[in-house]
């Protein structure tokens, strides 16, 4: 999708030696490359690969931090405990629900935002850009609090403002039921993360050459046909990348749930479950197993996207 960016001016670069024969220069370049990039790679591996391996190891033990004496190897039984417990399946259900709803809504809303920003008069474009960045930059916890307080019975104004809608009255307790609580969580998540999607889509939109639109107009396409047959297909890579990042991000939802419901009324997500097992209940073994399962789920989603939907990240990144 970066096919329309200017070709790099490679002319000045010397023709590099083809693989096979390695000249001194190429070898020293390689060494320098590893010297420069090595530390970053090492740090990344240290802060992720090591902990996840530790988590895999810990998950094979029955291990409570409050009772370290009785740490014992139990094989996969932690996984068995989790996978046969309805708590896990409810958490999975809630997480999938939040992910599906937020990503779907964000995609549509984000596209609308991107479209308006792309077409907006250049005078107000900077204003829109600044405005849209604010939800992105605001701390998730702050956003969660803002929405929580707005919907709350005591401090909120939503019930009063929207009291005329059926089902809403002055004492509607949004956080008292599973669905209404999840609704508020989704609203907060959508508000906070739509801007990111819309910015990615805007970048994708900008890379669909205007001349294609004109050609389609001449060919007699309506606005809707141009969108469906010209704009969207050419933005596929941008859309897929936005979807991939947002889906993985949404699947890890934690902050909003923590602030708004603390997992009450069956609103616990997988991340929250892992947190509760480890940090609150100090069940290192069980918590690690949940963490590993969450990790596997994320890997699975990424794999589905990359293999199934053929999100070509290299192409999307404009790598040759």
């Amino acid at each position, binding site marked *: 999708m970066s096919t329309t960016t200017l070709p790099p001016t490679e002319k000045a*670069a010397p023709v590099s030696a083809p693989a096979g024969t390695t000249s001194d220069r190429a070898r020293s370049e390689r060494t320098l490359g590893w010297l*420069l*990039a090595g530390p970053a790679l090492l740090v990344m591996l240290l802060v992720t690969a090591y902990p996840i391996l530790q988590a895999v190891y810990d998950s094979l033990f029955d291990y409570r931090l409050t009772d370290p004496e009785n740490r014992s190897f139990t094989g996969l039984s932690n996984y068995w405990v989790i996978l046969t417990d309805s708590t896990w399946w409810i958490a999975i259900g809630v997480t999938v629900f939040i992910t599906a709803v937020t990503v779907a809504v964000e995609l549509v809303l984000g596209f609308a*935002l991107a479209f308006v920003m792309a077409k907006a008069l250049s005078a107000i474009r900077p204003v829109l850009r*600044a405005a849209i*960045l*604010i939800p992105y930059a605001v701390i998730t916890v702050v956003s969660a609090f803002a929405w929580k307080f707005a919907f709350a019975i005591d401090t909120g104004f939503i019930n009063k403002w929207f009291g005329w809608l059926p089902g809403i009255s002055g004492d509607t307790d949004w956080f008292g039921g599973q669905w209404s609580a999840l609704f508020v969580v989704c609203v907060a998540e959508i508000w906070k993360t739509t801007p990111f999607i819309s910015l990615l889509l805007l970048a994708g939109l900008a890379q669909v050459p205007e001349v294609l639109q004109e050609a389609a107009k001449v060919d007699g396409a309506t606005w809707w046909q141009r969108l469906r047959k010209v704009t969207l297909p050419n933005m596929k890579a941008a859309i897929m990348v936005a979807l991939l990042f947002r889906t993985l991000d949404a699947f890890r939802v934690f902050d909003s749930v923590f602030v708004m419901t603390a997992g009450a009324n069956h609103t616990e997500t997988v991340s929250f479950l*892992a947190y509760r097992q480890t940090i609150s209940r100090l069940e290192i073994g069980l918590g690690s197993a949940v*963490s590993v399962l969450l990790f596997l789920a994320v890997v699975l989603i990424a794999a589905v996207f990359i293999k199934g939907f053929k999100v070509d990240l290299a192409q999307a990144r404009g790598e040759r």
Partner: protein
Amino acid sequence: MSRREKIWWIVAGVLIVLYALAPIAWIVSLSFKAPSDLANGQFLPTDASTENYSLILTGAASDLFLPALRNSFGICLIATAISCVLAMFAAYAIARLDFPGKKLILGTALGVAIFPVISIVTPLFNLWRNIGLYDTWPGLIIPYLSLTLPISIWTMSAFFREIPWEMEQAAQVDGATTWQAFRKVIVPLAAPGVFTTAIIAFFIAWNDFVYGISLTSTSASRPVPAALGLFSGASQFEDPTGAIAAAAVIVTIPVVALVLLFQRRIVAGLTNGAVKG
């Protein structure tokens, strides 16, 4: 564009601004409500009061909030600085040098970026307790690198790829030493990219909540989001809503200021990193 169309686009623009700012306006409004006014059911306070601000800045909650603010700034700035330096070297290698590790490093960065934070927290929680990093600044700075480093590498390599490196050669022909060419030509060209990356990395560190609540226990290292999240639990005062709102406004000020000042660069950085990386 016809007049009617123009009006529609302006209406759409106003809606976007409303969308983006309404919750912020709400939390600001809430922060100015006196405790007695909190449940007035209105968007705006009946009578604006700065009571909540004095509570968290000088009053009873100040020993909770102020250390958290200091922790947040310190930890986030250090984590940002470290990841920017590491990313700068890595991005230079990726953009400039021909070596086989490029793909591996970008791939690793991507993998780390999609990593579920909570999966790292569990083992770290255990490990930090054993080696004494629990509830310390380094105990947060190190895991923050897992948040800031991948995006820094991606964003910065995207920026560095756009640098016309042959400028360095032109400078050498113009009589510059290698060092002069780097300092006078490459540094000024690379600086905006590094700066933008730093802002984005800072946003991400500033936003962290999971590490903050999991790996700290006292005001020695607890950052603001975690402190906010746990305000409600600590019932030193009756209704923490006003205090939370005021604290939320204060921690939002820096990011809003950065957004207003550098919006163009931030957008370029965000989209470059994700789209072109």
